């Protein structure tokens, strides 16, 4: 599903160049749930942004579902993200003026779906995360855990093959975190989603099929757990 070949990412900050990722190789199988760990500043978010087409690598090839997105323009990446990726953020990033239902419906507005189809898909997605009864609530009327579940519904509503999550449980209590992790596991196992999740929490990483450690822009270890 994901094949990164010697990708590097560097930023120029004034006169000096920062290289959070250097010559990184990574392979993620279809339907795999991968956890990425590593100290702060090790380049986890940077890698996630590359995989999800939020950013482009400085060099190397990045083949996702058969397409080398490393060479895509900003415009191409935008259209690609709409089809292929659902992004789940640590701080949910729901649109505060829209209801849960409207937030979930958002990615479908980019498609040519009819209103009725959009409604059905959005309701299905809310049902998957168990929040069909909260569809008319605005984000401020939801708990953090509920907000994150709405965000997951939004990420999966357009049925993308790939879900990326940047510390999705980082801001949640234990109980809510468990619920989110179970949800991600279910999406991977039952719906075949490929999931890449960044986390600081070893317990969260344990929910994944495999954990990789990033340190100073390099993948250090490979610990599969069964």
């Amino acid at each position, binding site marked *: 599903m994901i094949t990164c070949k010697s990708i590097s990412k560097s930023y120029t900050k004034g006169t000096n160049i920062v290289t959070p990722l250097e010559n990184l190789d990574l392979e993620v199988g279809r339907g795999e749930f991968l956890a990425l760990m590593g100290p702060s500043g090790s380049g986890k*978010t940077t890698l996630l942004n590359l995989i999800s087409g*939020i*950013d482009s690598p400085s060099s190397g090839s990045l083949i996702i579902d058969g397409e080398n997105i490393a060479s895509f323009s900003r415009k191409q990446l*935008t259209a690609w993200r*709409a089809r292929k990726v659902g*992004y789940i953020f640590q701080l949910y*990033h729901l649109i505060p003026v829209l209801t849960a239902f409207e937030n979930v419906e*958002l990615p479908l*507005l980019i498609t040519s779906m009819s209103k009725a189809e959009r409604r059905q898909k959005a309701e299905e997605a809310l049902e998957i995360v168990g929040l069909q009864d909260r569809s008319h609530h605005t984000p401020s009327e939801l708990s953090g855990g509920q907000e994150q579940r709405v965000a997951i519904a939004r990420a999966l509503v357009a049925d993308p093959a790939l879900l990326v999550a940047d510390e999705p449980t980082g801001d949640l209590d234990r109980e809510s975190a468990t619920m989110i992790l179970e949800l991600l596991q279910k999406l991977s196992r039952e719906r075949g989603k490929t999931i890449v999740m960044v986390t600081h929490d070893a317990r969260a990483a344990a929910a994944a099929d495999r954990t990789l450690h990033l340190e100073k822009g390099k993948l250090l270890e490979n610990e599969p757990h069964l």
Partner: protein
Amino acid sequence: MLPLSYALRNLFRDKSRLLQTVGGSALVVMLVMAAAALNGGMKQVLAASGSSRNAILLGAGSEESIQRSEVSAQLSGIAEATIRGVSKVMGRPAATAEIHYMSALHTADGEKGQALFRGVTPSALLVHPEVRLIDGTFPQAGEVMVGKLAWRKLGIAEDALMIGKKVLLDKSEMTISGVFAAPGTVMESEIWAVIGDLRMLAQRETVSCVVLRMDHPKYFSDAELFAQQRLDLELTAMRESDYYAALGDFYKPIRIMTWLTAGLVAAGAIFGGFNTLYAAFASRIRELATLQAIGFGRFAIFFSLMQESLVACLAGTLLASALALWLLDGMTIPFSIGAFTIGITPGVAVIGLVTGILLGILGSIPPAIRCLMPALPKALRS
């Protein structure tokens, strides 16, 4: 595309900012409408004041000011007997000698203003058919009739110029015999008296001009020919419409000043508006980035921001139009040769609407660009 409801709900996220945007755009639109209405009103009164059928015979070299012109008191008789094409109404030629004279007028209540006097003969009503007595009688010796808007031009109370009241022209006392209307013309702000009275008052032997009403605008050439042939009289013939058009040019700097003032205040308000909108959009940079992460193109997001700004500016335009109709429509504005009424005409309303739309669209471009420019990973982190 993002739904319109998203743009509308965003408007109400910060009520004080919304108020600033609506108020600021209302101010700009109102100023532009006021400037358009003022200039339109002034243009219109000058255009309506002169008829292309009327020929003015005035002293050569005084084409810019009838008040400074002097022609012989006998000219009227000579002109109406010589020039073909002068209209006749029931056998009477439509021609009048006139004295145009500006002087102070004092009312019985002690108020005072600069008035425009016109000394005329009864035939003046044939030459200026738009002048219509609405009350009282045409003046006899020792009397005047006042235009309906003369009080406005003078800057005095309206009832000081009622029929039967006395007014002082320089030092001679006159009685008001009538009130006349001459809609949309400068004459409506004038005070008319018998020409003999004004000749005494102005202490002159001559008159200012002779005005002839021709059967058709094309007969103006007859009056022109007369002026050219009678070198001894030292005359120029001018179409009355041309005379007022030239006066209009004279007021051009004032019109430019009006636009300039409106433009300067508007520019200030627009920059304020840029900042307000920028603050509104910038507070949502992360949200705008999230929409991009979901897959919305920058143009779709820009379009939503523009809708937001456009709706606010249209609300401002509506407010400005209501205020303009309420405060400005029908207002009379005095100026040096009379007074004019400003109207919020459909033309002015369209100018206001176009201003509002342009404000909404153009005003959103710089702040939207600034908020959509940052790199996505950075914007998502903010």
